[in-house]
């Protein structure tokens, strides 16, 4: 068979081009639907634990009672990767309402248009978002003015500590500054020759929830300047942070000895975890851990406090890292008005937010719910509520690259803690350059 003649090539190329661009054209949704009309919505979420699924299902039933015309079909245990790929693929099986357990991808969702802009819906419903949601939570659900997500409960991070180990070491209260933290960690560390048997606090960034961005929040850094350029090299707190983490490790036997101990820990969610087995006297974790500890009943008494702050920022004690679940409307949904009714109920209805927060032991995400007298009175949970309300508490800024800059920062931090990064200043400059290159590549 002879190849196409030269004059046929333009037609062949045109066909290939049309095919390629056709395949690259995702489906587009609309907000023309009548929210009073009967409709079935698809809601994808990430909750998978039986108690959590029960709580979200109960929330959906409350919504359906209020909106008898709307039926909601839920799909649980859905990861961000699945949501991302499903919304890009489009089609009538894609969800209408979506949620994500991380705020890292909000910038990507808003900037790409994958999650619909919610400001028109908020305006239409007469909701002043600034009055409803705490500032930090609003910041992590928008990107460059596009509010494509709303907070659906939040997570605050604090310090869990072993009260028995504290009493044994003669420590009367949890540390508040980094120098107290270092001293207490040293006192609480138990060693056998070169091996660490119990760490006071393990600063190693790969331990369970210890990612460096969560620890770094205690310094209150600014990742980007007003033009959106990375400024970790210019931020003096970055050097302070790495120096302090290194000193904290050295006070307890050094990074390698602690890594060896870490490798002996069991799964984070099991009874073999470092904190449950008493191999960690202090431990960074989120508010949900309290509920799990109560159910697991460890053979020691435990307490909760905010994570210490740098000595030169002692007045910010009480702060912590904030993140949370976010929810939005899929760009491809053809029932966006009905989807908004569900989203509005889940994120702004005070009774619903309080009930859901109590059920799954998460921090409520509206101002009214945070002040509600019906919130769980458990003192450990209340500590996290105070961390969430603290004006110095910090969340990660959204980026168009999603969590790519966080990953780059984590990678860099792993190199620093292991001693592979010899020149911190040069490394930080290179890190900024890389984050900017990734941002440019995403924006193009």
């Amino acid at each position, binding site marked *: *068979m002879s190849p196409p003649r030269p004059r046929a090539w333009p037609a062949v190329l045109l066909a*290939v*081009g049309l*095919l*390629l*661009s056709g*395949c*690259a*054209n*995702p489906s587009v949704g609309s907000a023309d639907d009548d929210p009073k009309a009967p409709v079935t919505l698809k809601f994808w979420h*990430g*909750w*998978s634990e039986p108690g959590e699924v029960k709580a979200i299902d109960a929330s959906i039933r409350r919504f359906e009672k209020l909106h008898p015309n709307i039926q909601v079909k839920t799909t649980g*245990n859905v*990861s*961000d*990767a699945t949501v*991302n*790929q499903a*919304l*890009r693929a489009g089609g009538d099986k894609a969800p209408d309402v979506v949620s*994500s*357990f*991380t705020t*890292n991808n909000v910038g*990507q969702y808003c900037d*790409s*248009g*994958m999650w619909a802009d919610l400001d028109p819906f908020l305006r239409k419903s007469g909701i002043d978002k600034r009055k409803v949601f705490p500032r930090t939570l609003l910041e992590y659900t928008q990107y460059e003015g596009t509010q494509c997500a709303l907070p659906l409960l939040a997570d605050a991070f604090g310090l869990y500590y072993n009260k028995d180990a504290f009493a044994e070491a003669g420590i009367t209260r949890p540390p508040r500054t980094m120098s107290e933290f270092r001293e207490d960690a040293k006192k609480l560390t138990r060693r056998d020759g070169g091996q660490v048997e119990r760490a006071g606090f393990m600063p190693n960034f*790969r*331990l*369970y*929830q210890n990612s460096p961005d969560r620890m770094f929040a205690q310094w209150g850094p600014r990742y980007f300047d007003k033009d959106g350029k990375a400024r970790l090299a210019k931020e003096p707190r970055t050097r302070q942070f790495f120096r302090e983490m290194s000193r904290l490790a050295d006070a307890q036997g050094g990074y390698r000895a602690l*890594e*060896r*101990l*870490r*490798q*002996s*820990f069991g799964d*984070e969610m099991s009874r073999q975890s470092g904190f449950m087995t008493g191999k960690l006297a202090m431990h960074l974790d989120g508010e949900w851990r309290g509920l799990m500890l109560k159910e697991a009943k460890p053979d020691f008494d435990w307490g909760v406090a905010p994570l210490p702050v740098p000595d030169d920022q002692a007045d910010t004690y009480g702060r912590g890292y904030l993140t949370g679940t976010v929810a939005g409307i899929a*760009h491809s949904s053809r029932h966006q008005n009905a989807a908004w009714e569900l989203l509005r109920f889940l994120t702004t209805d005070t009774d619903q937010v309080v009930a859901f927060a109590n059920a799954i032991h998460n921090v409520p995400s509206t101002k009214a719910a945070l002040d509600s007298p019906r919130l769980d009175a458990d003192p450990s949970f209340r500590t996290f509520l105070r961390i969430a309300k603290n004006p110095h508490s910090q969340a990660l800024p959204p980026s168009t*690259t*999603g*969590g*790519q800059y966080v*990953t780059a920062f*984590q*990678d860099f931090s*792993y*190199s620093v803690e*292991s001693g*592979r990064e010899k020149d911190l200043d040069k490394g930080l400059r*290179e890190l900024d350059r*890389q984050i900017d*290159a*990734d941002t440019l*590549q*995403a924006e*193009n």
Partner: protein
Amino acid sequence: MALDLTSGARTGSTGRPAPGAHTLRHRRRRERLRTIGFLSPWLVGFTVFFGYPLVATVYFSFMHYNQIKQPEFVGLRNWSYVFTQMPLFGPALWNTVWLVVVMVALRVVFGIGVGLLVTKLKSGVGFFRTAFYVPYLAPPVAATVAFVFLLNPATGPVNEVLGAIGLDGPNWFNDPDWSKPSLVMLSLWGIGDLMVIFMAALLDVPKEQYEAAELDGAGPLARFRYVTWPNITPIVMFAVVTGVVQTMQYYTQALVAGKLASGVTIGPGTVIQPGYPDHSTITVPQLVYQLGFQNFNTGAACVLSLVLFAIAMAVTMLLMRRRSGLLSAED
């Protein structure tokens, strides 16, 4: 009436097409259609699963495309990003090349060794053949999980045994210098596939050639060099070519081993970051997935895919040429 060989049409003395010319053309067209018909399953498969994806990969490598908005032409920007601004490209390429060279070579050598062993055994042949083959049937993820558990530096039985005999065991999957050798050990454990084909090749070597060599006074090494090796060379080249192609796609074991050894919790909403420790196990296919389906940087992912394709093609062509050279020289 004469047959015009150049045009393929019958012509009469007047120069006009003869009455049978139409029939001949018709028959040829029918033959051509029949040929295409027989080829069509392959043609459809080739077009859908290779031709179109390849053209699309080249097309998107010049586009900014996040799989939501319409693609935009950006020239060589994706190429420049991959080659000059993506710090993981170097380690991923190095690791992939390292694995191709070391893992493939060792697997072939080990496969021949095990093949020789199980063909020479006088007793217990069935047991040893089964023992060497069964690990190959283990699912890659399960086998990797087991290896990470066995080689855990703090609690693993391997280091316990080494410690008992006074040796300080390495950190295996937790040490950047040992992580790739640990993956090689895992692949050698599952050598069953190569053992079977080498065993078949070794059993196929004519006995008379060994007898003739022995009569000529050839020792075991000389017999291997001048009898066994020339006979099994085509199978060795097959093992190398398929090994190279498979190892260039190395993904699962490195990802699972890195994730498990790191101990990092992968909660809902977070993604597995490959490469632990210190990017020593990140491979090009992992990077393609990360760029394409986690960062939705389709253009850069396409560039990397094309680089991988070009390297795989070049290596395969080189090996195939070498193979034909060897065959013609020895046969």
